[in-house]
């Protein structure tokens, strides 16, 4: 379970302070697939990056599986991060390492023995269907394959939580779909909590159970994904749903003409 309480974050820039997050309170159940949605600049990345303290919050607390992340010192934080996987829009694989070495990296950092690393990396590569690519360098992979390596790297040390910041935004729809299926599958198999940020309502609809809408650094709506689509309350949610309806209506009209009406 993830519990975020009274979280605040501002950025100090030469032009003044930007409030990126304001009094965020959120609770994400263990094993949930939780979506965070909002328009550009709303604070989504800042929020997810606070969860593993790639961004340091100004105040408030974050608790993951009973551990208060915001109170850890640097070396405790490093330990804790080993159980919080993260995947990125730009994949962020290491060009100097093969697929195998990229995936083995977290295990090496965690100090596991070599035979264990070999066995575990092969297992996880099998799970993301990249067994045949273990000795290839990332440069030779497609975007979808790179993200699979990213997922394998994030999961290899059996984390409790997977954080995903627009992990499918750089991928085509079909590849996006296969990555989402993979995440769903992993969520079921490993009972892993997934927090994902997305711009794409399809992604939300496809795999998330619950969600939060963020607007100008504040959470303006939370609840089940179904409620979001059936009964949107916040401005952002209404605008998102309106966009969907607009396209659905347009498609119905076009299909209508096609049928000769």
């Amino acid at each position, binding site marked *: 379970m993830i519990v975020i309480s009274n979280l605040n974050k501002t950025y100090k820039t030469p032009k003044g302070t930007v409030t990126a997050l304001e009094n965020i309170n959120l609770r994400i159940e263990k094993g949930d697939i939780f979506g965070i949605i909002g328009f550009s600049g709303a604070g989504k990345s800042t929020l997810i990056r606070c969860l593993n303290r790639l961004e340091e919050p100004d105040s408030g607390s974050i608790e993951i599986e009973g551990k208060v992340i915001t109170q850890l010192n640097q070396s405790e934080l*490093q*330990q*804790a991060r080993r159980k919080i996987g993260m995947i*990125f829009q730009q994949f962020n694989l290491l060009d*100097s*390492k093969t697929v195998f070495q990229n995936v083995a990296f977290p295990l090496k*950092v965690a100090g596991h023995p070599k035979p264990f690393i070999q066995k575990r990396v092969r297992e996880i590569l099998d799970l993301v269907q990249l067994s045949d690519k273990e000795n*290839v*360098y990332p440069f030779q992979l497609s975007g979808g394959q790179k993200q699979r390596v990213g997922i394998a*790297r994030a999961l290899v040390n059996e984390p409790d939580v997977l954080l995903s910041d627009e992990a499918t935004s750089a991928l085509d729809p079909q590849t996006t779909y296969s990555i989402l299926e993979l995440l769903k599958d992993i969520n079921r198999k490993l009972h892993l909590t997934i927090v994902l940020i997305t711009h794409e309502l399809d992604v939300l609809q496809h795999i998330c159970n619950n969600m939060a809408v963020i607007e100008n650094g504040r959470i303006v709506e939370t609840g089940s994904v179904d409620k979001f689509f059936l009964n949107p309350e916040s401005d952002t949610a209404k605008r998102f749903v309106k966009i969907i309806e607009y396209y659905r209506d347009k498609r119905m009209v076009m299909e209508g003409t096609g049928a000769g009406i």
Partner: protein
Amino acid sequence: MRDDLIDLLWKGLLETLYMVFWSSLFALVLGMTLGVTLVVTEKGGILEAPRLHKVISTLINSVRSLPFIILIVLLLPLSRWVVGTTLGPTAAIVSLSIGAAPFLGRIIENTLKEVSPGKVEAAKSIGAPPFTIIFHVLIPEALPALVRGITIGIIGITEFTAVAGAIGAGGLGSLAIRFGYQRFREDVLFATVILIILLVQLIQWGGDFIAGQISKKRYKFE
């Protein structure tokens, strides 16, 4: 051409190679330390320490703003202290290493800064400590560019050895000045110039080759 030419050149070349090799090695160790420290201590770096960054940066700028010949003179007492003399190739290695280290440090700093912050973040997100990030992410990811940058540095050192020759370091530079300039031996002058040019070409070619091999391994299609 006189019959002592080959002997002179051979001795000069060996001295130059000796100076270039050891100065490059020491300058590289120092420069790497400086470059890495600059990158990790800057604001937002993995071992953020803006004060230390500022101190090192100012120090580097100060050393770099001195003309090399003056730096050698300034470092003469150090040479005497370390190797017991201020003359000859071994004494020159002290000044060459210290003179070239800040230059290499800046080159290495700039190269390491080009590593995408995303890769560093990915390493942080898996719980990698700072030293692991330096040795498993920053340096290996920048390696082809590092090799190219270091090549520039070593060529700089080769030029510096020739300058150091002017004040008694030995090597090809000293030949050119003692024989070519002071005794009007044009054969020595031209031969040393050609040797230095060849040496620089060789270093450049070597650097390009190594960098190319690393890139080819990572960025080839099968």
